[in-house]
């Protein structure tokens, strides 16, 4: 059986950045539409079984109901049997269950934070991220139909995954040698002492930014490194930069439509697998992939490490092109 999983986060794309920047709004009914398009595209290209994460808005149930009423649903679609709490823990749990079921690929609707949660629950199954969040570096703005086709190609094994999938980097955060948490794109260290509205947007409080990848066009805090140094997913290193030190000012797009003048020093290269100690002399919070998560206290010592333990990411265009070359779209 060719199986795919779908995880759609009903909470993505609604945070405070709609007030402080001009961030995109994706309502939950559009997420249902995207899920329907993924189902239709994947069933039309050979997928036989689909598993969907249950959520508080019943995105999966509503997609099934609509496609049943329109008599378009041919494939077997199942909602995972699990408790729903309406938190990121649901996503982590669903990703783990999908890995256990043996799905061939997981399509994820959300932002960087959602993809981070999927990566926490699964490290073996390739993922396709569709951006329905805010400042998205990791998931891309791709049409659900295209994502569904790419998922189908992976499930049907109609491409060379060595060429079309990338084993990503991640930032690992340790305290006393215990892995506390991870980030896929960036870890931002801020002097704010509470989690509050979770999203981080105020650069005034930021002390340091640590990244796996950096590019000026990847909207968000990783651009603070990206405007000085581009780091691709192929590079076997990440970097960190300190804010409000040095003499050089750079303009960086830290949020959608938000260009800020920021004083930064020369990025420090962080080699894969090497631990870097951070000793704090202030209370603050670490934001992981844009969300304030880890509160720390003055005097505490943490270690950050860039590794290749991140998720397996599907390069959607390469995957589809590779499948086209070997006749994937030719009628049987």
């Amino acid at each position: 059986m060719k199986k795919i999983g779908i995880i759609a986060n009903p909470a993505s794309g609604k945070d405070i950045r709609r007030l402080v920047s001009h961030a995109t709004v994706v309502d939950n009914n559009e997420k249902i539409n995207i899920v329907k398009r993924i189902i239709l595209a994947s069933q039309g290209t050979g997928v036989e079984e689909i598993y969907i994460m249950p959520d508080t808005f019943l995105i999966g149930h509503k997609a099934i109901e609509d496609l049943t009423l329109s008599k378009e649903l041919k494939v077997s679609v199942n909602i995972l049997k699990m408790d729903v709490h309406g938190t990121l823990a649901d996503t982590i749990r669903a990703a783990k269950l999908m890995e256990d079921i043996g799905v061939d690929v997981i399509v994820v609707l959300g932002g960087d934070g959602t993809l981070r949660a999927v990566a926490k629950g699964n490290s073996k199954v390739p993922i396709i991220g569709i951006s329905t969040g805010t400042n998205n570096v990791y998931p891309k703005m791709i049409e659900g139909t295209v994502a569904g086709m790419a998922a189908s190609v992976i499930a049907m094994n109609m491409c060379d995954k060595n060429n079309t999938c990338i084993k990503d980097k991640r930032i690992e955060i340790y305290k006393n040698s215990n892995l506390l948490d991870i980030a896929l794109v960036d870890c931002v260290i801020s002097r704010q002492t509470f989690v509050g509205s979770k999203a981080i947007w105020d650069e005034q409080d930021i002390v340091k930014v640590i990244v796996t990848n950096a590019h000026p066009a990847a909207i968000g805090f990783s651009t603070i490194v990206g405007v000085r140094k581009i780091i691709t997913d192929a590079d076997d290193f990440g970097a960190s930069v300190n804010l409000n030190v040095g003499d050089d000012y750079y303009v960086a797009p830290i949020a959608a439509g938000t260009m800020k003048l920021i004083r930064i020093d020369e990025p420090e290269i962080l080699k894969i697998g090497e631990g870097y100690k951070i000793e704090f002399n202030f209370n603050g919070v670490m934001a992981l992939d844009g969300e304030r998560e880890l509160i720390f206290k003055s005097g505490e010592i943490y270690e950050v490490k860039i590794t290749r333990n991140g998720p397996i990411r599907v390069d959607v265009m390469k995957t589809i092109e590779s499948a086209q070359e070997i006749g994937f779209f030719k009628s049987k």
Partner: protein
Amino acid sequence: MDLNNNKIIEMYTTMKKIREFENNASKLFAEGQIHGFVHLYIGEEAVATGVCANLREDDYITSTHRGHGHIIAKGGDVKYMMAELYGRETGYCKGKGGSMHIADATRGILGANGIVGAGQNIATGAGLSAKLRGTDQVCACFFGDGSTNQGTFHESLNLASIWRLPVIFVCENNLYGISMHQSRHQAIQDIADRAVAYNIPGVVVDGNDIFAVYEAAKEAIERARNGQGPSLIECKTYRHHGHFEGDPAKYKPAEEVAEWMSKDPIPRLINYMIDNNILSKEELTEIDNTISKEIKEAIKFAEESPWPPIESVVEDIYTDIVEEVRK
């Protein structure tokens, strides 16, 4: 973000005062001291507090049938509130309005409101007034999830948007419109989604986290004061009691109640303050004792206040014109 320890302690004091007032109102209602309907705000204190902590005294608020928290957070006097609940002459409405009609124009409190959604129009009018008078006052409009199906919600957002009025629409989504779960009366989960239809920003925040509410309200209020128009903030929260005192709330699943009780905004803030050495347990007890004393004094004030005289029954109800007609 500018949020010092004094402000955090001030917000805790407000939240605790609301909780203490409501716990006493619940007890007094059960004892038969308070008559009529009482809808309590227990569990939702972070919303009113986090929003009003960003308002000035000359700013406005509009409230709902569940209004005690909003009025306390905007600086309402608990003595006159309690006297109103007791139906005494010293109350905010001279004892003739009760819980659902408390107003204090001197503090910009444009009234609790027994009609679901009716505060939204008043808030829009207050915003229009501020704009026409050329002031930088704003109006925070509190309402529940159930009211967002009313025409008033859509009319108000539409007008506030097209006229760029300084109104902050604050939805307290406590999951239930009376006893009906939101999923049974709306085809959306996030009321903030409705902001798109009116071309205003809509955000969702954890309404049980004082910092999340404070941050979002601060940004929305600044936006309104700067002439950029209205915003919609949806605060996900939960009322610990039934819709009204006496409602056993059997429609709420036990697991749901337990999950939300674990997210009670007051213990969350206490933990944060203790953890960050903002105040000691002794200082916390001192604040709690002061609040407890203030509420006790308010009850005593209410109990010792006179009933409204019988001849005042039609005062403040009919206009002079009607009075003439009656003659």
